[in-house]
């Protein structure tokens, strides 16, 4: 399986994603600079965290017009797997590949701590190795992670089961205290209707070995790796 990690000016978790994929999971991975053309034969693209273009105007708003994004949109429309983490999630929302938007944390504080997430759906390439209701411990580190969508969009997300992760406490219960940023409906991660584009605010790439405090992030990357293998058995995207 061939992974591409897209690097924008201001990305800062690109190395973490690369390291996790290459050295922890033994995957084939390469960086793709945002000005380069996107080669068609990647099996999964990751838009990493960071502060692309200094978060000017709105987080992700400027990166969304980076040259590479045309290729990313086209890749996604062909069914290619795309994952956005933190700033990557913000970029995918701004690009219209995912519904909703990430706004300033309700507390106005930058949050940097471990949170618990409940895995809500397993019939996606991003969560297929997990169990429904399973609780994962992952770090968040963001100032603009408050998910918002209008009521119609939220209803559609629920009906289509596009909410893949919610913020919960260690026992898997939602509460205001467990929600680090004020996200609507405790949403931590959503996918598109086609279930091939996924974004989340917490950082699975920073929870890949016990020594980091958790290795629950592997659940997400190993799901994608498993789904990628299944896909390879069928026809390659492209």
């Amino acid at each position, binding site marked *: 399986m061939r992974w591409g990690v897209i690097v924008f000016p201001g990305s800062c978790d690109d190395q973490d994603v690369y390291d996790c994929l290459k050295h922890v999971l033994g995957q084939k991975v390469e960086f793709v600079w945002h000005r380069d053309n996107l080669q068609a034969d990647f099996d999964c693209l990751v838009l990493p965290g960071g502060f692309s273009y200094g978060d000017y*105007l*709105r987080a992700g*708003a*400027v990166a969304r*017009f980076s040259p590479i994004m045309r290729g990313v949109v086209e890749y996604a429309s062909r069914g290619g797997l795309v994952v956005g983490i933190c700033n990557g999630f913000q970029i995918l*929302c*701004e690009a219209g590949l995912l519904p*909703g*938007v990430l*706004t*300033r*944390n*309700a*507390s*106005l504080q930058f949050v940097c701590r471990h949170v618990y997430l409940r895995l809500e759906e397993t019939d996606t390439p991003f969560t297929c190795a997990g169990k429904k209701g399973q609780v994962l411990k992952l770090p968040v580190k963001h100032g603009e992670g*408050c998910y*918002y*969508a*209008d009521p119609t969009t939220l209803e559609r997300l629920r009906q289509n089961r596009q909410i893949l992760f919610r913020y919960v406490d260690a026992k898997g219960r939602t509460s205001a205290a467990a929600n680090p940023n*004020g996200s609507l409906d405790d949403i931590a991660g959503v996918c598109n209707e086609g279930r091939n584009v996924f974004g989340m605010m917490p950082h699975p790439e920073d929870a890949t070995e016990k020594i980091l405090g958790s290795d629950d992030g592997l659940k997400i990357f190993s799901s994608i790796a498993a789904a990628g293998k299944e896909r390879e058995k069928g026809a390659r995207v492209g």
Partner: protein
Amino acid sequence: MQLGLGFAVRFKIFISLKEGVLDPQGKAVERSLHSLGYQEVQGVRMGKYIEVNLDLASRQEAEARIREMCERLLANPVIEDYRFEIEDEKPSAASKNRAES
């Protein structure tokens, strides 16, 4: 589209959060005003103000372009509304030259 054809203006663009969208910054400023004794304050909403200078053939064309800029980049239609005003409308150098020749 032709550039520099006479309608040189500055657009003042106001971007505001839609009603119902959480505005923690506005809330914090409101609380701060209350604590300074301005008890009459009944709500603060924060927004953005952007100035864009441009020069196009007509007011109609300029407004259409500004609207497009707002919808594509300057505002996020999921959470924000925008409106704009035109400041100091005056003939640009290009149109003056044309008038003189």
